[in-house]
């Protein structure tokens, strides 16, 4: 409606954001706050800095405890704008049950919501975050200092944004099923013609895999990643029961796409797997008769010369930067 869009056009920023730092809050990696600074120039996305920042602040769990720290980012990460991805156990991302995605609040906690139409014939995708957490995050970066917040996203949506901008997704023609593996959950997203048509969360994450190995093989939790990377020890018998329900969900989702939406999915991607990739792909091939492609969040992003501030093992730790990078990329691509 022209009358409704006019004020929005007037308040739209004159200059598009071309230099953004993405931050993931509440990642729980133990290494710090994942941060990625991206710049878009001449149609190409460049990686200027990446790392894990030692910044104070844990996500508040209730509205009463909201002491807001002031974040000052290191020099290489001081982009003009920041996109923050919130990885909160209280956030939600789902397709709306109603027509417009604005469901009535059914909880004591006030949620800040935003929705978007991702596919023409699908309910709107709704993201929600407790108001106190959103307000807390909005005040982390003070006015008058670089960067200031230009976007607050839920972690799952940010990761999907990063994936949809990757060359692997483009090459797949926009028809794909993608897994985004976090510490506690794994997101399952199906895309048809580039639009998100299906989104589910499965309560299995990397921590569950580590926990199973630790408990069943009798080793410390800190050594589980080494076991998953070691070729001398075969943890397949431990990994398989953890991954099988997840892959079963993928199987059901692919069947849904084929039967209901007439979409034969042949591209399966996974992001966020920090260790044990061979076991993920081996079991997937056995169950689904398809190959599982591991996507690095850094695919398709050019690294600038010696001026870039990148850790030595950036490629290895790239899965942990998936959400932060996706948040920044969502801002850069959404102009």
């Amino acid at each position, binding site marked *: 409606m022209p009358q409704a869009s006019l004020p929005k056009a007037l*308040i739209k920023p004159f200059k598009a954001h071309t230099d953004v730092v993405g931050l993931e809050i509440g990642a729980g990696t133990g290494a710090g706050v994942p941060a990625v600074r991206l710049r878009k120039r001449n149609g190409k996305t460049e990686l200027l800095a990446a790392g894990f920042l030692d910044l104070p602040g844990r996500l508040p769990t209730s509205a009463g405890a909201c002491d807001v720290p002031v974040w000052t980012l290191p020099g290489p990460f001081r982009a*003009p*704008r920041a996109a923050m991805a*919130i990885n909160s156990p209280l956030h939600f*991302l789902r397709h709306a049950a109603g027509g417009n995605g604005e469901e009535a609040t059914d909880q004591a906690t006030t949620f*800040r*919501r*935003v*929705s*978007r*139409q*991702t*596919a023409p014939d699908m309910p709107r*995708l709704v*993201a929600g*975050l407790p108001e106190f957490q*959103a*307000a807390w995050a*909005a*005040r982390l970066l*003070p*006015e*008058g*200092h*670089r*960067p*200031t*917040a*230009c*976007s*607050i*996203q*839920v972690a799952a*949506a940010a990761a*999907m*944004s990063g994936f*949809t*901008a990757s060359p692997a*997704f*483009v090459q797949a023609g*926009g028809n794909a099923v993608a897994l985004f593996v976090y510490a506690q959950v794994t997101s399952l997203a199906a*895309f048809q013609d*580039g*639009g*998100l048509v299906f989104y589910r969360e499965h309560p299995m994450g990397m921590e569950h895999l580590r926990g199973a190995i630790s408990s069943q093989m009798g080793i410390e939790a800190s050594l589980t990643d080494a076991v998953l990377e070691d070729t001398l020890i075969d943890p397949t018998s431990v990994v398989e029961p953890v991954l099988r329900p997840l892959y079963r969900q993928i199987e059901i989702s692919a069947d849904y796409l084929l039967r209901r939406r007439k979409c034969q999915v042949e591209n399966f991607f996974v992001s966020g797997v920090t260790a044990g990739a061979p076991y993920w792909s081996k079991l997937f091939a056995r169950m689904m008769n398809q190959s599982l492609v591991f996507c690095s969040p850094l695919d398709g992003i050019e690294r600038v010369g010696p001026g870039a501030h990148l850790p030595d093992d950036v490629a290895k730790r790239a899965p942990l930067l998936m959400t932060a990078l996706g948040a920044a990329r*969502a*801002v850069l*691509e*959404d102009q």
Partner: protein
Amino acid sequence: MSASLHLNLLNDDERVCSSPVRMRVMLPIFAVLTVIGLCVWWSLLAVRLHNAVQVKHLQEARIADLKPSQEQVLSLRAREREARAVLEQLRFYRASRLCFSETLLRLPQHVPEAVQLTDVRIPLPPPLPPPPFSPPGLAVKTVPPGPTNLTEAVTLRVAGRAGSSKPSEAVRALLDAFRLPDFTNLVRAAEIPKGAIRQDTARGAAVRDTILFEITCDCGERRFK
């Protein structure tokens, strides 16, 4: 190709600027500073206007106080100018004085025996013209104490009677005497005006050979410088 999944939960009122110079802060500051500046400016103008009015009143009072003194001074200066003009005029007169005494002392030596002088006179200059008419309201011009021209013609008029057998020759001799060096330092020209020689009829027929005459001597000009 793909629909954007950028679900931004940041409210518009939470968007802040990273620039140290923020219009949200600077605009009120500039506005307040402008208002303060205008107030100060107007205050200064008011104070200066008040001071100017006070100075004006003070000057008017002083002018009013000085008015009688000024009028007195102007009056005195006018009187002084008049007095100075009179003194100047007197100085002119003093400087233009012609000395007749020595010349007249030599006159008896040149008067023929048949001639009797009855009148030796230096005629007064013609009277001064009346002062010009002044319209009412304007100050009447001061009447000058003497002639205002730079020169004044001076004449010596000698009248007498001549008897004997040839009275006209006696008169002619007297006229020629005025052209002698004894008189030429004073008398430039001497002449008998037309009709100035006539028969003396006042004393009867016995003295019919007596004539009355009159000689006018041009004594040059008095120069008032």
